[in-house]
């Protein structure tokens, strides 16, 4: 298996190159440059042209591509046009908030999703199953920006329970350690719930169907015939095999930990990768857009590999086909 994993890791290199090249073509083909987005009444047409020359945007596309690829090969992701800071430093700064938000959301997603699915599968088509299905479908069908806006309206503006934005309170650096942590968690709850609960609705629907499938297997009937309790049958004999596809789902969700949610991070002004990507795309900040795209591609490929490895570890039957 180790050899297979190494082979898959080596395959990442041409895949990342391909994705990066496609991303460069798309970004280069998009009309407009960073100079078009600069907001300053003193900027004349000549200064705009000068700005393009400064960032090499007046060069032929193939030259820009080769220069960028050469930098990428040496691990240099360039300097942001907007913030003037090295992109690597920018990513190092924006990744932790994204991982924190994404991690909290994934935790909510799977814990709440599994609990809901188990509760619903205990009495299929019972009142809880019907109500949770109705709410779950509703949540899963809502656009996240709308849900986030509603959450802010209710919980920040009307009830005042949670802050409407940002990762910490005004000038929170003056707070003590525990107070800062509490402040951070206070800011985390609303965006994490907006992301995690929508995911939980989907996970619950997915797992419920698998649980019901497993529930009809003969070995479950045999377990029942042996006189095992319903609780034991559900938590031990039904849930464990039913979790296999959920583990795959978890692996495929891992890229989300680093790519971030553009919508939620923007609505809540959460200083992560998603927010950075949106700002960079608006400003035609090519080095940042390209770096985040490559990061996302690597994360998707690694996530897929992790999902396969996890599936192989949990279920030996899948080893050959998944790896």
């Amino acid at each position, binding site marked *: 298996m180790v050899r297979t994993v190494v082979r898959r890791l080596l395959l990442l290199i041409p895949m990342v190159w391909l994705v990066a090249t496609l991303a460069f073509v798309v970004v280069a083909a998009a009309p407009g440059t960073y100079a078009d987005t600069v907001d*300053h009444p003193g900027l004349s*047409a000549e200064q705009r042209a000068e700005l393009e020359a400064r960032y090499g945007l007046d060069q032929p596309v193939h030259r820009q591509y080769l220069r960028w690829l050469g930098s990428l090969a040496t691990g240099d992701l360039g300097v942001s046009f907007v913030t003037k800071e090295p992109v690597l430093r920018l990513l190092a700064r924006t990744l932790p908030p994204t991982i924190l938000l994404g991690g909290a959301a994934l935790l909510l997603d799977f814990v709440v999703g599994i609990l809901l699915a188990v509760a619903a599968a205990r009495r299929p088509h019972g009142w809880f199953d019907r109500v949770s299905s109705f709410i779950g479908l509703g949540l899963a069908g809502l656009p996240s920006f709308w849900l986030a806006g509603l959450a802010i309206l209710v919980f920040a503006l009307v009830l005042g329970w949670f802050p409407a934005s*940002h990762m910490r309170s005004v000038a929170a650096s003056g707070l003590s350690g525990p107070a800062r942590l509490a402040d951070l968690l206070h800011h985390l709850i609303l965006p994490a719930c907006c992301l995690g609960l929508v995911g939980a609705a989907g996970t619950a629907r997915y797992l419920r169907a698998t649980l019901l499938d497993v529930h009809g297997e003969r070995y479950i009937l045999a377990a029942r015939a042996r006189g095992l309790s319903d609780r034991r049958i559900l938590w031990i004999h039904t849930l464990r095999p039913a979790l296999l596809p959920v583990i795959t789902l978890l692996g495929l969700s891992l890229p989300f930990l680093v790519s971030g949610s553009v919508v939620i991070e923007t609505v809540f*002004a959460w200083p992560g990768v998603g927010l950075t990507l949106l700002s960079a795309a608006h400003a035609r900040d090519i080095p940042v857009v390209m770096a985040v795209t490559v990061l996302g591609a690597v994360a998707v490929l690694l996530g897929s590999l992790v999902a396969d490895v996890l599936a192989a570890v949990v279920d030996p039957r899948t080893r050959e086909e998944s790896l």
Partner: protein
Amino acid sequence: MKKLVSVSVFLVLAAACGSEEPTYTTPASGGPPDRGGTVVVGIVSDVQSWNPYLVEDLESEHVLSLLYPSLAVEQTDYHRHPPSFAPSLATSWTWSEDHRVLTLELNPDARWSDGAPITSRDVVFTWRAQTSPEVGWLYGYVKDFIETVEAVDDHTVRATFSHVYPYQLMDLNDGPIIPAHAWSEIPFDAWGDTDWKAHALSGGPFSLSDHTPQQEIVLTRNPSYFRAPLPHLGRVVFRISPSADGLLTQLLAGEIDFLQSVPPDRLDRVASRDDLEMVIYDNRSYTHICWKTDSGPMADPAVRNALTTAIDRQKIIDVVYAGFGRIAVGPVLSPFWAFNRELRPLPFDPGAARAALEAAGWTDSDGDGFVDRNGQTLSIEILAPAENELRQDIALLVEGDLEQVGVRVEPRFVEWGTLMAILDAGEADAVVNMWEEPTQIDLEGLWHSPAPGEPTFNFGRYANPEVDELLREVAELTNFAEQKPLLDRIQALIVADQPYTFLVENTRITVHSALIDGAEINAATPFFNIDEWTVDDAAGR
């Protein structure tokens, strides 16, 4: 945040003829102000750098203006003459007899936040940085006519200009003063790779205390600030949020206290709140429709005049801008000294517009409701940025008005970059656009006929040889009073040609907490007199 029992909404509109100072003051409460308190300001983007010569956007300049001092402060008296200046770091200045040499006396008590004196060495170093190709300050061209800046002694500076022109002091004053003793050790060619946060010093009212990128900037009162008295505020915190709607929500939730610009279509969310105050003022910009003048039906000035006459501009103000703004007249904003006061907006008269089109040969010969000539229907595609709802609404209103006079209009909303590519190529029939005008009157960039292959903001490719000649003559004159008749003539020609339909002179709506007192806000900067702001810090920030 504590709610005030009774604070009225404070609205100020500039007088139509610009006869009043376009700076407005919120009413100050009685009694001596307390020192201290925090004001939280919402901004949409982070500062690009802590070095003012490496930033390209206006928002960064506003924040940095609180740290780095200027020689003088531009006043808001631009409706009578080019703006005058009040002393700041320079306490006084004198001109040589031929008006080419300016000698400035600096405040001898001025200090940087590390205790070092602010001297003429800093002024000379600043000029070197501004004009250095290695630094590449984007607005370095404003120093083109300054030959030398020399230190006469520690607190006397002499600037020599290549020739006399009306904006000499404005050009010298452009760009804040930076600390030579701390920054001259870093070679200019290494400035781009330097982390300037570590080198940030202050000679202004506030110092940098903390900066969390994309989240928050904390400035604290600079105790060594040279102007007395020191600012009342203890802290100014900038909260960064990329979404204008998000910022408005934060204002309503009491998380921020000051928002420089609220779109008029969002005002209903603010108007009912008695703990917020609105300040409405000219923001020195105008919205217009730029017509393609070099080919097609709009190459005929008579058609362009007819189109303008057919557009109900007051309706645009009422519907799109909630009644805020006034009908624009021409290429110079009406509050400016250079505005030709003989000019009036073309009337809204659909009947006259239809008659003018008919006179130009455009009639509805096939009875389909749209005018045509030689078998070709008068059809115009009007572009607007997909990111700007206000301009899209304008395009839709214009569509309705022009169809009333038989002109077919197809509004198309395109992403900003795509729009700029179309405009650069000069391929747009029409575009709803906005220009923000600096107080230095320069009509050359928009109205001189474009040179082939050169970058231009003359998107409609307007060309009038008489305007070109007058622009050349204006550039040679040294006195704004001599320039005025020529500028008047240029405006009259442009208004007669209608390369733009001048729609609306815009206003800006700033909303702030009613706890803030004494804020003077103008189009140049929201922080014009921030040293005098006071806040009842009920939030205990």
